[in-house]
């Protein structure tokens, strides 16, 4: 196999494609966590987005409705989490786990009649440019609109958190809900919004898998990507731009294993697959040791229940 320049271009393009669901889900979860809410239901919300996107595509034959519908379904399922943790003050960890378990089960139930139906081709942009430009073509062009959105999202998220008033409100709620509440901010409302936004992004991430990346419905097709997205948020130390970098690294590892399998490379693929998880643990250890580093971006009240005494 020759490692010529056009092959590397195609390789980078495929790494980008595989990192899209991670970027989307992790960016959504990042906003949720920055508001102080730890939602372990990412995997569940993604798989619900995947099945509802695919089902809507089959039923309505309209990809726009399918994509929007997948985001809506992510929102709907995250309402359960929001209602339980914010209104009924339940434990974030347990509720999030329940959401993942529930979501995987429900998606398989809903998707029963959609197994084996072929997907529809998702329109790609600038496909002519992809072929004509040797190296940059496959990297920059010939992707779906969702990919371009995903790659813009970390920058938008960064701008939102750092430069807008609403972003400041979200960070304030995550760092010190009590002070934020004393300033007249409706902490519960802000957290609700962040949870629902996270749901929408996870739904979109799922739809990307079932509509674009591997256009079909398979039970449990998210295959742990939700957990990697969760790891990614920590790996990125809650910084949106680092989410993008991390997603490309984690996505790159996935693509790399496929190619290494193909050329019969010595390192067992399982060790490569385990790398994202091990790297996350190492990052956790490094940032947790240094209290200054962890204070930088970590939402101080992450996972703690807040309620206003009346």
């Amino acid at each position, binding site marked *: 196999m020759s490692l010529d320049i056009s092959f590397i271009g195609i390789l980078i393009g495929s790494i980008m494609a595989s990192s899209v669901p991670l970027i989307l889900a992790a960016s959504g979860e990042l906003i949720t966590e920055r508001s102080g809410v*730890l939602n*372990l239901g990412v995997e*569940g919300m993604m798989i619900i987005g995947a099945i509802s996107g695919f089902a809507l595509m089959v039923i309505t034959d309209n990809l726009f409705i399918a994509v929007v519908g997948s985001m809506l379904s992510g929102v709907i399922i995250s309402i*359960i989490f929001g209602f*339980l943790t914010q209104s*009924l*003050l*339940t*434990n974030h*960890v*347990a*509720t999030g*786990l*329940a*959401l*993942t*378990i*529930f*979501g*995987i*089960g*429900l*998606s*398989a*139930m809903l*998707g*029963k009649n959609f197994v084996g139906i072929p997907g529809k081709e998702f329109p790609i942009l600038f496909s002519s440019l992809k072929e004509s430009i040797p190296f940059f073509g496959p990297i920059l062009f010939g992707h779906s609109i969702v990919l371009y959105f995903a790659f813009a999202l970390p920058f938008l998220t960064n701008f939102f958190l750092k430069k807008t008033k609403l972003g400041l409100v979200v960070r304030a709620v995550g760092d010190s809900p009590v002070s934020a509440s004393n300033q007249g901010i409706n902490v519960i409302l802000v957290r609700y919004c962040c949870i629902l936004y996270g749901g929408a992004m996870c739904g979109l991430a799922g739809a990307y898998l079932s509509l674009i990346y591997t256009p079909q419905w398979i*039970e*449990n097709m998210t295959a*742990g990507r939700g*957990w990697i997205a*969760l*790891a990614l948020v*920590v790996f990125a130390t809650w910084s949106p731009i680092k989410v993008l970098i991390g997603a490309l690294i984690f996505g790159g590892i996935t693509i790399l294993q496929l190619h290494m399998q193909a050329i019969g490379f010595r390192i*067992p693929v*399982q*060790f490569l*697959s*385990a790398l994202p*998880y*091990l790297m*996350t*643990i190492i990052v*956790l*250890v490094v940032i*947790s*040791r240094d*209290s200054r580093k962890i204070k930088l971006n970590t939402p101080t009240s992450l*996972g703690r229940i807040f309620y206003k005494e009346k």
Partner: protein
Amino acid sequence: MALYFFTPFIAIILTILGGGIIFYILGFNPIEALKFYFLTPISNLYGLSELLLKATPLCLIAIGLSFCFKSNNWNIGAEGQLTFGAIVGGGVALLFYNQEGFYILPLIIIAGAIGGMIFALIPAILKTYFNTNEILVSLMLVYVSKLLLDYLVVGPWSNPEGFNFPETRQFSDSSRMPLLFEGLRIHAGIFLALAAVMLSWFVLYKTYLGFKIKVSGLSLKTAKYAGFKGKTMILVVFMISGACAGLAGVGEITGPIGQLHRMISPDYGFTAIIVAFLGRLNPFGIIFASLVVALTYLGAETAQIFLQIPKYTGQVFQGMILFFLLASDYLLFFKVKILSLKKNELRH
């Protein structure tokens, strides 16, 4: 207090109702479907044995988790500790694959418990010495252990005569849990679970260690003020929890499975978290909860056969149980509020 142990029943009833509604939406007769789900599986002796078989690992893991949760340590990686316990125990079993002897099974069991314990020590040590979040570390390690198992059964430990199937050799007869009844799969592992229940009850309610665990769970500040060493306790509860998960792992591979392969556990480690909550972290409550949750596994298998719905439906029920249980806790919280208000009123 009575309400505290009563709400799990409310949660179970609401889950059954919710399941009925979902079955109705999917176009099944809800009564019929629920009957297939909850009654058919346990209407004969074989079904009851299967119920106990599935409840055994759930009960064992949940007992271990109750130590962690009671002391405010969020070990959610029991699935990983189960897997690693099974790897270590399975490794010992493979050493003796062509030998027989009474000492083999105890060795495997001890190895499995130690394996789970070591694996649980990773998040515990990182938490105590590096201040890392145990939720995320224990969760990440689940995938690491599953990939390690995958590597072993595909690579170095795969059966040389196994036509490249991703599985190890069959364990020898001495490596298998003795069956309790001829023709049923229920095995001696259930006594491990029962012993764990008794021991945990004794430790939690009759010893100083149990007292310390409970105090730390209720208030970390109080525990510090009382001079309890937090660090040692974190290590101890994680070790107990990991050992129990490891035991559950060896119970599975030396019981119904008899070898190592990729799918040694249908997420028992995660589901046991639901069991621990449903059982209110109480040893006897956990026995009851493990039976209920085991039934959702069995029901899903029956429903798959009779109603042709995917066996993942079990997870819909498991998720719902936890949702409703957590939601019904609000009732308790609310009640506490009303009571404290009344007390204040009395005072003024």
